[in-house]
């Protein structure tokens, strides 16, 4: 921002000869009366002369001074004439010009508007976007001029919208009608609220303009509704993939192996803290490649969580196979120990895990529908983890053994499957997948010792709803719950939506205790 201003200044200095602001107006900037100053600023702005930015900037920085009849810019020990930009002799005792808050605000607006004429298209785009929300009637000529000069189609359409907004207050009904028609193509709620007053008789006397406004409001409403719903479905999908990432590990340990692992949330936490640890490592040793800490943390998250899983299985869980309620209590104990261990190692406060720069920003599908990159990447990552799990369970020898052991343990043992080792490996796999889930969660939510507790109920709900022993069930349950929750949130608020969903699941389980996709035949108890 500052850089562009400086380049602008240099550029302006180079071209002072053929583009000089009106000296009379410049002199008015030094007037005693604030209103005169404001009027001068506005007039100077409408000339759309890039050179005036230099004067405004100096004024905002209190280096614009009055020396007799001339307005000068004092820069260190040099003085320039404000209007022409030529070097002049240092005046004897320059008077400073009072710049109060009103004028400061006016200057900021003026400089922002003048950015529309910047040489850099990105600066122009940013300026045009900024203008969408606050455009005043005085700016209409300025915007028209900017539109003429504009070559970039996107900026031009933004400017056209802004111009139409500025023209809404035009005294000429024809101009107003044109403005309303131009605005009908918008899909932003702000434009709609601008048009609503015009639909009323009291505010708009001209019938044609009023009818045009009414139909424009309707058109915009339809589009806003559609983009809102699209946005909700997308955030539902993204919530669904978050739920899925939280629940996939559990779908293996609980769904396939039948182990009630209440420490599942803490395995997510291990994954999230792996991201934190890798980030700290990169900050210390490879600050240049900080953006790549996240991919580097993927194996760490998987193996750290898997290692914790192996330890849990070997020391506690294996002694409790077949005693589910006891497993539940013992793993709850494990979760408490892991939480406290995280507090001791990393402190009780949440730690900060930054998004890499390539995850910020998003794709703007429609003016008010932005799909943030981090959400898109989470959805993609969920797909990646899902296919990883699918391949591991269905296409590898380990997966075959796991399925064999869960289907018929004695028979699997008879044909030479090392059942006890398979138990450990399968649990480690589930734990590792949970670690990957935690890694993804670290990008969108708080990372702290207690974070796992928030996911444990949700994760169990997804697995139970989907049907135990089913990966596909978990996927559908997670996505369904995600979209359902977000659509509910639209009209009931977040907490109520959450409660409704929980109650829905409780009722659903009463009706279909086997979940959405019941296992058939010999697997049924």
């Amino acid at each position: 921002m500052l850089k562009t201003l400086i380049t602008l200044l240099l550029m302006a200095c180079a071209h002072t000869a053929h583009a000089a602001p009106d000296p009379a107006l410049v002199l008015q900037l030094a007037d005693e009366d604030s209103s005169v100053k404001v009027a001068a600023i506005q007039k100077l702005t409408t000339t759309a002369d890039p050179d005036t930015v230099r004067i405004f900037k100096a004024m905002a920085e209190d280096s614009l001074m009055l020396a007799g009849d001339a307005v000068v810019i004092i820069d260190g020990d040099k003085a320039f004439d404000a209007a022409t930009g030529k070097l002049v002799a240092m005046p004897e005792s320059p008077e400073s010009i009072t710049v109060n808050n009103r004028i400061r605000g006016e200057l900021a607006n003026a400089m922002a508007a003048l950015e529309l004429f910047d040489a850099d298209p990105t600066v122009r785009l940013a300026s045009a976007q900024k203008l969408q929300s606050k455009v005043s009637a005085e700016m209409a000529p300025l915007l028209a001029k900017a539109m003429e000069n504009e070559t970039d189609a996107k900026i031009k359409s933004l400017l056209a919208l802004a111009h139409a907004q500025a023209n809404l207050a035009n005294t000429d009904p024809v101009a107003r009608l044109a403005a309303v028609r131009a605005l009908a193509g918008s899909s932003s709620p702000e434009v709609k609220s601008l048009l609503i007053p015009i639909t009323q008789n009291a505010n708009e006397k001209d019938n044609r303009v009023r009818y045009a406004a009414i139909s424009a409001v309707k058109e915009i409403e339809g589009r806003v509704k559609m983009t809102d719903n699209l946005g909700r479905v997308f955030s539902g999908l993204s919530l669904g993939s978050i739920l899925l990432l939280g629940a996939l590990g559990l779908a293996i340990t609980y769904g396939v192996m039948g182990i009630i692992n209440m420490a599942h949330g803490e395995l997510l936490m291990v994954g999230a803290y792996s991201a934190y640890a890798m980030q700290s490592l990169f900050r210390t040793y490879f600050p240049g490649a900080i953006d790549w800490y996240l991919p580097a943390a993927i194996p760490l998250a998987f193996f750290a969580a898997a290692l914790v899983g192996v330890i849990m299985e070997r020391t506690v869980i294996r002694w409790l196979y077949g005693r589910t309620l006891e497993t539940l209590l013992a793993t709850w104990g494990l979760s408490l120990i892991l939480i406290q261990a995280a507090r001791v190692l990393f402190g009780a406060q949440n730690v900060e895990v930054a998004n890499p720069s390539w995850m910020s920003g998003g794709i703007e599908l429609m003016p008010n529908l932005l799909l943030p990159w981090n959400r898109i990447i989470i959805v993609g990552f969920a797909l990646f983890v899902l296919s990883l799990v699918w391949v591991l369970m269905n296409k590898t020898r380990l997966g075959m053994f796991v399925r064999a052991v869960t289907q018929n343990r004695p028979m699997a043992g008879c044909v030479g499957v090392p059942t006890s080792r398979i138990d450990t490996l399968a649990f480690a796999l589930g734990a590792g997948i949970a670690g990957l889930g935690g890694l993804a969660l670290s990008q969108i939510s708080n990372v702290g010792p207690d974070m796992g507790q928030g996911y444990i109920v949700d994760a169990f709900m997804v697995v139970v709803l989907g049907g135990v022993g089913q990966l596909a069930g978990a996927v559908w349950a997670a996505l369904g719950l995600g979209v359902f929750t977000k659509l509910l949130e639209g009209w009931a608020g977040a907490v109520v939506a959450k409660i409704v969903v929980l109650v829905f699941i409780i009722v659903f389980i009463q009706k279909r205790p086997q979940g959405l996709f019941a296992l058939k035949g010999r697997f049924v108890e």
Partner: protein
Amino acid sequence: MKATMREPFIFRFFSALDARSRIALGVFLAVTLLAIPALHLMLPPESAFHVSTYAITLLGKIMCYAIVAVAMDLIWGFGGILSLGHGIFFALGGYAFGMYLMRQIGRDGSYHADLPDFMVFLDWKELPWYWHGSDSFWWAAALVVLVPAVVAFIFGFFAFRSRIKGVYFSIITQALTYAAMLLFFRNETGFGGNNGFTDFKRILGYSITSSETRLVLFGLTALMLAATFIFASWLVRSKYGRVLTAIRDAESRVMFIGYNPLWFKLFVWTLSAVLCGIAGALYVPQVGIINPSEMSVANSIEIAIWVAVGGRGTLIGPIVGAFVVNLAKSWFTVSFPEYWLFFLGLLFIVVTLLLPHGLVGLWKTLWKTLRKSQGAQA
């Protein structure tokens, strides 16, 4: 048979206790109803034997927990149903009575308004409908019993009818208490949101902070615990209790013999919820606060560990467990706060792995080996 029918009810309850339990009960009541109040009131605070207000509050609190533990043991130890949502019934009882206590504050709150402070803060003009009648002690006492009973009955009816059991049931109860916690966290629910109810001033017109009120509440809690214990002992030895235990051990077989497990389970489930509600109502005036965190998942699971530590399937076990775990908790959180969770976690693991019958089971084994070695020596 006829003679026993004519016996007064109370004797039948007592006849369920063996000699040792009666002695223990007598000692317990003597200590809680006579010794502790006497030591608190008669001795100066400097005396080494003085029982401080802190100790009375702590013991009163733990006795409430012990009632919850016995209630939990009834359904888990004897019915084989592990609930991870008993915190909800405890909290519902507490909230029901807390409403009465809030109304007793009257105009002494910080806003000096007729409405409870948090409603003034929310700019509410009148009490919501469900607060109606909450200024009456008896209505509050009825709610303490009715609300947990109705919630438990409805939930239990559907859950047991669809024959949900084992871990599924545990997870659903967990979801239930989690949903309730979220609901009570909302300010709009009308129960004080995050902060819940606190700053109580008086109960039935008596100051809630005076020693006498505290001792009365303490004594009532002790009586309630004793009554719960006696009633539970009678219940598990009755025919009903036998069928319940049979359902725990082989539900299908009991069904094929011709019993419908639904009503047996539903009764003990609702009873357990009511006991928790009463415990909650006794807890709130003694501790002076009730907030939604009582419904958190962690709190409800902790109830299970009290029972497991003491020894489930015995009735003295849960009481011992509640005392041991909670005394350990207050000691740890004062002396080594950072080690409490390690200790609690290890307790969960050690008890499930090594002490399936809890401390009571351990004691019994020790006693037997001691007897045996003595016999061998003689």
